[in-house]
């Protein structure tokens, strides 16, 4: 054993020898893993930038929906996947974000692009405040408390004394101006508008989880008592993570309100909260890019299920129930083939192919 002293905090880099991660030397088809990561990010960005030019209006609209759903799934993943706090109530935070943006546009005629940040801030406050009492709850009990939030949210939005603001059961019809850029169609403009916030929030999440904060979040998930012993303030981290998770869902909600041009209490039922959870699990727990897969899954798979049911059963009104059955079947198949979600599946097979 070598005899050395602990470096002081003043010590600059270059002190202790750092070893490279042996996994970085592994190659898949001659390409090292870090390069595969970089290239996939570039391909992903290129697809995100150019795809809308090769799609029809409705296709672009769906992509936009995937964007804000991914943001919401990412928000849930920060809380549940990374910090280990269950939530079945994230539809409520999306509702708060959507209604913040909606009421600002509808009542105060605030331009749509100025509503995103306030929606995030309001949802941070809501998440943080909800996180405080939730500190005393763990696991299934926290899931139940958040579930209550999801069940209550649509009822509160319908409450008659809030109706002048929320529009009650009818919801709010929102109007927004046309695309300000001549060569972009309206759908394309809303897509890029959402993409801007999506990219910002994904980068922020990536920065967050690879730093001191992310380590603390994972530590809380893995072993709260040890985390506390390391000097991590559990209450602060848990409640702020709730708030941050709220920001993501709030921005997603605001984007959904703007893009869909309509909000109603029934858009944010607990079913939607469960869909977000499904998106997180299918994409991959505690993985950031997985949120995009999760967002795509919860948008496209129910649509595909509907199309499949339509194809096989035609216009039979009873076939409506079959949509959920086939969605369930799709979910079982994915979970069976990829028990660690799509992200875990990709990672494992890359490792398997590597040499």
């Amino acid at each position, binding site marked *: 054993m070598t005899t050395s002293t602990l470096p002081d905090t003043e010590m600059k*880099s270059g002190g202790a*020898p*750092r070893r490279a991660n042996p996994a970085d030397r592994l190659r898949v088809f001659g390409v090292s893993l870090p390069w595969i990561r970089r290239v996939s990010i570039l391909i992903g960005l290129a697809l995100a930038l150019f795809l809308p030019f090769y799609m029809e209006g409705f296709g672009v609209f769906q992509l936009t929906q995937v964007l804000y759903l991914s943001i919401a799934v990412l928000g849930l993943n920060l809380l549940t996947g990374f910090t280990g706090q269950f939530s079945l109530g994230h539809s409520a935070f999306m509702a708060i974000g959507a209604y913040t943006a909606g009421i600002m546009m509808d009542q105060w005629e605030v331009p749509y692009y100025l509503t995103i940040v306030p929606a995030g801030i309001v949802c941070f406050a809501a998440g943080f405040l909800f996180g405080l009492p939730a500190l005393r709850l763990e696991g299934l009990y926290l899931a139940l408390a958040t579930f209550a939030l999801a069940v209550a949210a649509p009822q509160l939005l319908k409450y008659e004394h809030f109706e002048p603001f929320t529009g009650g059961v009818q919801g709010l019809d929102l109007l927004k101006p046309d695309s300000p850029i001549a060569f972009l169609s309206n759908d394309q403009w809303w897509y890029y508008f959402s993409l801007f916030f999506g990219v910002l929030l994904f980068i922020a999440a990536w920065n967050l989880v690879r*730093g001191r904060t*992310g*380590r603390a979040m*994972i530590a809380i998930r*893995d072993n709260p008592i040890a985390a506390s*012993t390391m000097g991590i303030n559990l209450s602060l981290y848990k409640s702020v993570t709730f708030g941050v998770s709220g920001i993501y869902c709030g921005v997603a909600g605001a984007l959904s309100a703007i893009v869909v041009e309509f909000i109603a209490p029934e858009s944010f039922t607990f079913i939607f909260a469960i869909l977000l959870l499904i998106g997180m699990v299918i994409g991959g727990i505690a993985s950031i890019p997985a949120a995009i897969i999760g967002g795509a899954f919860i948008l496209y798979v129910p649509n595909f299920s509907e199309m499949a049911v339509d194809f096989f059963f035609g216009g039979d009104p009873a076939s409506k129930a079959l949509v959920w059955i086939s969605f369930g079947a799709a979910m079982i198949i994915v979970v069976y083939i990829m028990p660690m979600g799509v992200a875990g599946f990709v990672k494992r097979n890359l490792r398997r192919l590597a040499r």
Partner: protein
Amino acid sequence: MSQVSANATEASSSGRPILQVKDVAVHFGGIIALDGVSFDVPEGAILGLIGPNGAGKTTLFNCLSRLYIPNSGDILFEGQTILNTVPYQIANLGIGRTFQNLALFATMSVLDNIMIGCHSRSKSDFLSNALRLPWVGREESMLQDIAWELIEYLQLGDHAYDPVGGLPFGIQKRVELARAIASKPKLLLLDEPAGGLNHDEVEELADTLRQIGHDRNITVLLVEHHMSLVMAVSDVVVAIDFGRKIGEGTPAEVQQNPEVIRAYLGTTD
């Protein structure tokens, strides 16, 4: 006792007690886990706390790291009571610990586990992390330096990027030690560090503990069943049984103590 203070002064500058346990009592319902235990840990020393199973060692330990609250008595660290300190701030005071049954962050790599040990020495928060401000990068680099130095020191280099959960027990024990040292504690609480280790690993641990005490100027409070380890490394030994202190002194003195011998039914190893 003169020998004790001599050892302690040799290892430290002042020799004043860094930790004072004063008449600490803990009851769980009707069960008395600790019944007025008092002792001092001299700065720079290695103090071994021994006792048969159920003597109250771990209970005392959990009082020190504020997981339990004593029913009476006081615990002073550097002359200040720690009983008003919330658990997560214990690390900020300069008290680090390891756990009897390991409490690592299983899904994280060895490197990340040790970097978490530096949590109390670093300060970037949600906002600065999310924006990745320039100083966050510098802080991160500093934490990496601390972690890599400990990785080399405790010979963990081959496993630096492996998730801790899948590593052999002996290596996990070293990771936990590294994580505790990473916080640069003044006082290090070790709960049965030799538990589950083989003979060679225990020998190695004894070397490491002596080095930690002397090179890094860390006072060590060691709770241990492994008698030969305690006797080999400790400057002071405190023996407790049924929640009471039954002996205190140098390893040699404690080994001769009739009460201690009785508590262990005549066996000292």
